[in-house]
């Protein structure tokens, strides 16, 4: 039985091992390597994707659980130009090695979708690890993105 879902807006189906974590489907089968392996145990968030718009850790999410879902990876964010979170990440010069940042960006997108004006405590619910220690600029970038998104909404 093939599992059917959409990936970055495109219909996909997968007839292989349904126990395979979505992470490996994305990286090895769909050839989208923007989603990263960091721990394989759902502890670091480098594998974060959006499932139906909500952040999920793809290394512990078996493909069989994705029937009928919409998956967005970092490659699918900001299809027409950059998402305001991506733009804020550039403006604040967040990245050092950059390996965790796709996951950080998607976690931030998820947060801002739920909490458009996050407090410090809200920011601190993001548990994605950054070994390089870019957390100071991550906070600034999320606030910058929140302002940009608010301005967009005000214009709409």
């Amino acid at each position, binding site marked *: 039985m093939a599992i059917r879902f959409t990936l970055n807006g495109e219909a996909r189906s997968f007839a292989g091992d349904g126990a395979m974590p979505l992470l490996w489907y994305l990286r090895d089968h769909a050839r989208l390597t923007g989603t990263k392996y960091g721990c394989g145990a759902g502890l670091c968030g480098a594998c974060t994707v959006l499932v139906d718009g909500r952040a999920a850790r793809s290394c512990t999410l078996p493909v069989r659980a994705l029937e009928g879902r919409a998956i967005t990876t970092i490659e699918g964010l900001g299809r027409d130009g950059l998402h305001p979170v991506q733009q804020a990440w550039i403006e604040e*010069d967040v990245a*050092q090695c950059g390996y965790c940042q796709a996951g950080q960006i998607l976690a931030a997108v998820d947060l801002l979708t739920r909490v458009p004006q996050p407090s410090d405590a809200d920011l601190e619910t993001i548990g994605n690890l950054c070994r390089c220690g870019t957390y100071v600029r991550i906070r600034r970038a999320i606030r910058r993105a929140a302002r940009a998104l608010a301005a967009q909404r005000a214009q709409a």
Partner: protein
Amino acid sequence: MHPSETDGAGIDRRGFLKVTLTASGALLLAPGFARAPAAGAQPPAGAAPPNPLGLYVRIEPDNRVFVGARNPEIGQGVKTALPMILAEELDVDWAQVTVEQLPLGIEFDGATPRWRWGPQGAGGSTSIPEAWADLRQVGAQGRWLLRRAAAQRWHADPRELATAAGHVVHRDGRRASYGELAPLAAMLAPPTGPVPLKNPAEYRIIGRPQRVVDALEIVTGRARYGFDTAERDALTAVMLRCPYFDGGIVRYDDTAARRTPGVRQVLVVPGPKPGEPYTANLATGIAVLADDTWSALRGRAALDIEWARGPFAAESSAALDAQCERLLARPGRIVREDGDFDAARRAAARVLEARYRIPFVAHAPLEPQNAFVHVQRQRARVIAPVQQPAGAQRAVAAVTGLPRQAIEVHMTRVGGGFGRRLASDYVAEAALVSKATGRPVKLVWTREDDLQHDFFRPFGHHHLIAALDADGAVRGWTQRLASASKYYRRADVKPEDLWTAELYPDDFPAALVPNYRLEWHEVRSGIARGSWRAPAHTANAFVVQSFLDEIAHATGQDPLALRLAMLGQDRELAYSGHGGPKFSTARLRAVLERVAAEIGWGRRLARGRGLGLAAHFTFGGYAAHAMEVEVTRGRELRLHRVVCAIDCGRPINPLGIEAQMQGGTIDGLSTALSLETTIEGGRVVQRNFDDYPLMTLAQAPADIEVHIVPSQADPAGCGEMGIPTAAPALTNAIFAACGVRLRRLPIRDQLRAGA
């Protein structure tokens, strides 16, 4: 990381410029580190035409400038900073510049290897000082050629020509872009000697904040790391390595592994024999090769192996602590002795002693180790995240028997280095598997593999003794260290030199205390050790800066005043280690005073709050931290304010320096607060981020204020300077807040337990 670990490939530094023109009219400049081939020499049969992407600077007819990045980018920002240096002297607009990663470039003059583009390691904070020495000339010589070309075209005197943002400009207003001039410049003879460099007063790029060059690729998921390598026909491999130090395989059954869907081959990969130098891979294991990662992981999970526990089966952290106690009960090997410490101790008005414990820690880069290697009969190709590409080439040569000339090394972006990728063990493993199977192999490590098999930062017990006079001045000082040297099974290091990785004899307060002694004891351990970011500086700065505070508090002196008194007059002292040859007391004093001023040193604080500071000289840079913390009634620790100052000489990219100092601060705090690699039953205990908990955003200070001290001194790299002073500033602040002195790292819940 010591410069001896970055490859000194017998460099011939006669720097003439190699200049060529491509068919499409682009000007190529390459530093002529290697000697030019003899006139009339033919390229090897079948050799491809020179790849324009393989050369250093390429100026296109439309005036876009492509600059090659020679060092691996591990997050330290050199892929941005080094091209900035070159672009400044070439005098182009930063907006014109595109940076491309260069592969390993080593040419052979007979048997002698030479760098094609200059040194290509990422370690020891050496990339920037090396580039300062050679890259400016590459840019300046290119600019010289372009002015000459314009002079020729306009029949003008070169002295009437200036350059500005990628154009040559005549005093009379005529202009030509570098791109237009490229074909003519390519035909001119390059300068035969060094040319004048820009006056720093005219810098337009150096010293201005620039964002990292790959930001767009990173935020869109297009940046390619080693783990992302996807070569045609490659099999993906994972290894199950013996977790016991120097252990082996008693028996195994790979039937189930072989039957796993997608698995193609299973093979034993031998590791080093006990007692032999470490030369290739770290541990014996079994490799599972499959069509994709999940299949390989499932195949590995189906292996049934009984391990031989090896000669270190009884090793444990508790046993190592006991070994240190025994060692420190006896005299050790004195590695520095000024004056007569024993006499100073006998004559002292007061003697203070303290013992500190520094744990093993792992590197834990977020991208675990991986390497793609394709070994063929006569050549090999490597694509991997490395800090020492020349070392990777040597490792593959050693395990395959191929000459280095036949081995290509492509450096991917690196998802964190921290010193882990200075070792080439994971590249050697992939080469062994590719050679044994005849297939192109991408060998990847899981997080468990990474935390269980590392070259860990050394563990040690530090015993410090100070002999004080009646005024509390330090008349005698000794540091007695028992540690497991980071020189692990190194054939090139003599036993009598193992201590040189652990104690830097000219570190503060050497030469500032009249009776000064350093002593070392060798701790024997089966665990692999190696270079961690800012190697022995993290341990030594912690114990020295903590002990200074203990002296200050015990004698009623202000910790800042005591440090300033010990530094004394502004002068330069000899510093024989990496980062020397000089240590400036004035520059250390300046960063100390800066953080003290910024944190408001000396002000009264509410109950439960305290200030702490620390300063240290690391590899040519001077850094200091000051922190304000609170320890609540419930013994919770809160970091209210974190301030640091850095003097790394002339700042190249202030935005990058700030990033390194913030990142280094978090590295130092995270490690000191929570991280430890422990040993039980002859193997490492920690396996993943649940038992090796890196600091999260919520735990990190919300802000870290970085003050860059203006300087015109030659620039030092600053990838390592932010770490050593973070932990002692923290524990000094904790003491000031609640009177608890923390001497054992990690801190964890020692406060709550009422240390």
